[in-house]
């Protein structure tokens, strides 16, 4: 197996392992941005724990655009249990990988075609 391929497979395997571990081990607490929003809205103190019922009040925020993603919060809904999260993370990780390969290959193809046109 070539070094390239071995690196690729090992890299993807590590990424997928991290993603799957995240489904079970990631903390449900808010991230730094959400925590800041809760602090400025008086739902949480700066250094204290986040109360279980703390929610960001979206009605008083400036943005009025809304979009419903197909897999919010990295899950496929409650019916699949943790499998929904695992599938969503695996799908997203592979998609991020393929998006990079796809864009780079497409750019290579375009510049190769341009070079050929110049040569002709």
């Amino acid at each position: 197996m070539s070094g390239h391929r071995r690196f690729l497979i090992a890299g993807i395997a590590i990424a997928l392992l991290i993603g799957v571990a995240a489904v079970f081990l990631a903390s449900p607490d808010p991230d730094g941005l959400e925590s800041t929003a809760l602090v400025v809205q008086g739902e949480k103190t700066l250094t204290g724990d986040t109360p279980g019922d703390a929610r960001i009040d979206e009605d008083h925020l400036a943005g009025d655009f809304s979009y419903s993603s197909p897999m919010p919060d990295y899950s496929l809904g409650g019916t699949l249990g943790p499998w929904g999260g695992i599938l969503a993370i695996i799908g997203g990780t592979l998609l991020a990988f393929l998006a990079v390969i796809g864009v780079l290959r497409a750019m290579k193809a375009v510049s190769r075609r341009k070079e050929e046109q110049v040569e002709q």
Partner: protein
Amino acid sequence: MHIPDSFLPIGQALAYWAVALVFIALSLRWARDEMHEEKIPLVAVLAAGIFALQSFNLPVGMGTTGHLAGGALAAIVLGSPFAAVFILTLVLIVQGVLFGDGGITTMGVNILNMGVIGGFVGFYGFRGLMAATRNLEVSAFAAAWLACLVPALAGAVELSFAGTFPLRAGLVAMGLYHAIIGIVEGFVTVVAIRLIMTARPDILQLGAAPDQQVVT
């Protein structure tokens, strides 16, 4: 650090998109000019790894969690801040469109914060620190810490313009939380760089200038 749609008025969100697009165009030019065939797997694996790591929220105390942003890692490993813009743009598109992590109108500001600011702070922070300390781990850790903190402070300023956070309270809370989250960012960045150095030193293009010796 992913700003959702509801946090920014659409006019401001579009203005950040416009700035982000300039850097996205420059990152595509970087990819066209600098991307050799043998480096493509590294870029793709970094994107997959950063996506997975961004979904892994670790508790950092004070009822708050944090995850890797990845701008410093991408920029240091691939030797250009535009590598961070390129990778973070694609990761944020997947996250925003499919998973609702970060908004659509606010994808521009998220690319600007995590990709552009994170990438530039991480890259030049690493170069400067390498010149000063000649120590890879110390330089990468500190640069990644800064590449987590500075975008968070930028986010606080942007959200104060939006009227979402008061400036001072936003800077204090975002700064405090991300100063701690940055420790996770620094640690993961150093571990990832060491892993890649062990596996494929030939394709690693550490952000240090070529004449600088890496002391490990």
